């Protein structure tokens, strides 16, 4: 129901974005297009790339209207047009065997598997840490500030080193990627879970005290079920973070498998269309993962009676 209701506005917004996008392609690509036209022998104004260097893109477009269609068909556009990306996506997903190294499905799977492993590790670590923090004052006081500080370290910048260091102690392949992805995903889980495990109010806790319930009983019967809505909310953030982590780890990992590898090699060879299609694929993957978690959330919360 809710999906149907928002579909209209979403479509309109998406249409508007595409419209803006198509317009923006012209000024973004006009210089390259003119230069190519000039090389091909067309007359353009003004002549000479050096002369055009500091001119405004819109002015150039107005003076060279004949070149505008070419802005949508460049091989190496500054901004590819949506249909170029769509064509590339089609070409690399539907038209290629999924076992082919040129298939985005193949690369998507490589990234996905590391993401899922990292997400699982991160979630488990996050939950354990949260349980510790909630049950031990010492952990609460000492760990939490450092957990926050840990997220200010630009892990993305030192990912290559982490890979090398892990490599040097014999950890290779899927695991290093998963570890970086876990590093990014554990934090939202800790924060959400600590909040969730602490939602039971004093009254609910007191109720169990009048039953003389022990810690274990309190945890399984009260804290854990009460924290589930928070857990799911943070899982959605965490899974997106895990995906980013994996892609980052894939950049330097060499080999070039995975969506990160696609983006990297795309950027070596200036293949903007390739970068963009890998980007879109990554975003689709993230959206799919988040959707999957919402689905699990809805089902399990309904089972638990936490949602109607």
């Amino acid at each position, binding site marked *: 129901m809710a999906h149907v209701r928002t579909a209209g506005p979403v479509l309109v917004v998406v249409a508007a974005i595409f419209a803006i996008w198509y317009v923006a392609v012209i000024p973004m690509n006009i210089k390259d297009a003119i230069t190519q036209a000039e090389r091909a022998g067309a007359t353009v104004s003004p002549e000479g790339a050096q002369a055009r260097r500091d001119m405004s893109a819109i002015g150039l477009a107005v003076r060279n209207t004949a070149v505008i269609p070419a802005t949508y068909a460049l091989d190496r556009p500054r901004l590819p047009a949506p249909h170029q990306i769509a064509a590339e996506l089609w070409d690399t997903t539907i038209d290629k065997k999924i076992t082919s190294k040129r298939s985005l499905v193949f690369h998507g799977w490589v990234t996905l598997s590391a993401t899922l492993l990292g997400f699982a590790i991160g979630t488990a670590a996050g939950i354990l840490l949260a349980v510790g923090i909630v049950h031990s004052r010492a952990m609460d006081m000492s760990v939490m500030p450092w957990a926050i500080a840990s997220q200010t370290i630009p892990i993305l910048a030192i990912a290559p080193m982490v890979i090398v260091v892990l490599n040097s102690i014999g950890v290779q392949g899927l695991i290093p990627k998963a570890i970086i992805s876990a590093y990014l995903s554990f934090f939202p889980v800790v924060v959400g879970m600590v909040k969730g495990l602490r939602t039971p109010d004093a009254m609910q806790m007191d109720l169990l005290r009048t039953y003389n319930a022990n810690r274990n009983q309190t945890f399984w019967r009260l804290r854990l079920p009460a924290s589930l809505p928070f857990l799911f909310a943070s899982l959605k953030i965490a899974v997106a973070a895990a995906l980013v982590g994996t892609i980052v780890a894939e950049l330097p990992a060499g080999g070039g498998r995975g969506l990160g*590898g696609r983006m990297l090699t795309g950027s070596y060879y200036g293949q903007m269309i390739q970068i963009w299609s890998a980007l879109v694929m990554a975003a689709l993957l993230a959206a799919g993962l988040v959707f999957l978690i919402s689905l699990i959330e809805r089902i399990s919360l309904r089972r638990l009676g936490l949602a109607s």
Partner: protein
Amino acid sequence: ADEVTLQLQWVTQAQFAGYYVALDKGFYEEENLDVTIQAGGPDIAPPQVLAGGGADVMLNWMPSALAAREKGLPVVNIAQPFKTSGLMLTCWKDTGITSPEDFKGRTIGVWFFGNEYPFLSWMAQEGISTDGGEDGITVLKQGFNVDPLLQRQADCISTMTYNEYWQVIDAGVSEDELVTFKYEDQGVATLEDGMYVLEENLEDPEFKDKMVRFVRASMKGWKYAEENPDEAAEIVLENDESGAQTEQHQKRMMGEIAKLTAGSNGALDEADFKRTVETLLAGGSDPVITKEPEGAWTSEITDAALN
């Protein structure tokens, strides 16, 4: 079989064709070696991998290897399949640049990550400051692609004769729109892709023996690649995990690479080494290396391998 791990300094491409050919054609196997080739990337420092024990042999440019040596990581060159340098600066002709003198006041893209040393030495020798300003060069840390040039964010960028230069051409630029400055021609060439191992490992005769066989097989691969460039390029393509390389580009790259490896049988030419060291020592106020390196290369392996 004896295991050997080789760390490349870049992603899989024809620049490393010799090793892939040796692997594919079974040259390593013939030497009773089980070789793993690890591709590199923009942020992987091969010396670091070597130091961590993640690889037995690495490929590296000599300036970077010598700098690592000064940093206390004793790496030793055991073979030098690349005789000639492929590094150059590529500039737009319409900027009016005709000689290094004209770099003053320009913006130039340079690869860092240990690859800036040759450029900095060269500019120090020319007496041009690299701190920007009217008379100096504004240096950009260029990403590993040619966009800064195409977008005219830089007047010149670093390119390899075998790779980036052709990317510029592929982008539709004709050769006569460009001016190139090969380091080789400027007399500031430094040795590129050599094989390096940790000095302490060389004390182990077994390791040494492994390396002898490795170098022998690798050089066999290289020579095979030189003779069969198209086949070599195909082999490289098969080994490319990212599926992003194109046949046309790799075949052309192999052709260019063959020119650089042509003059070498794998043994390092002491004269080349001396020239490299001199260039680097001349690095002006902030030289790359401060003293003549000792024991930075050995001919022991190649001697055993090639004779």
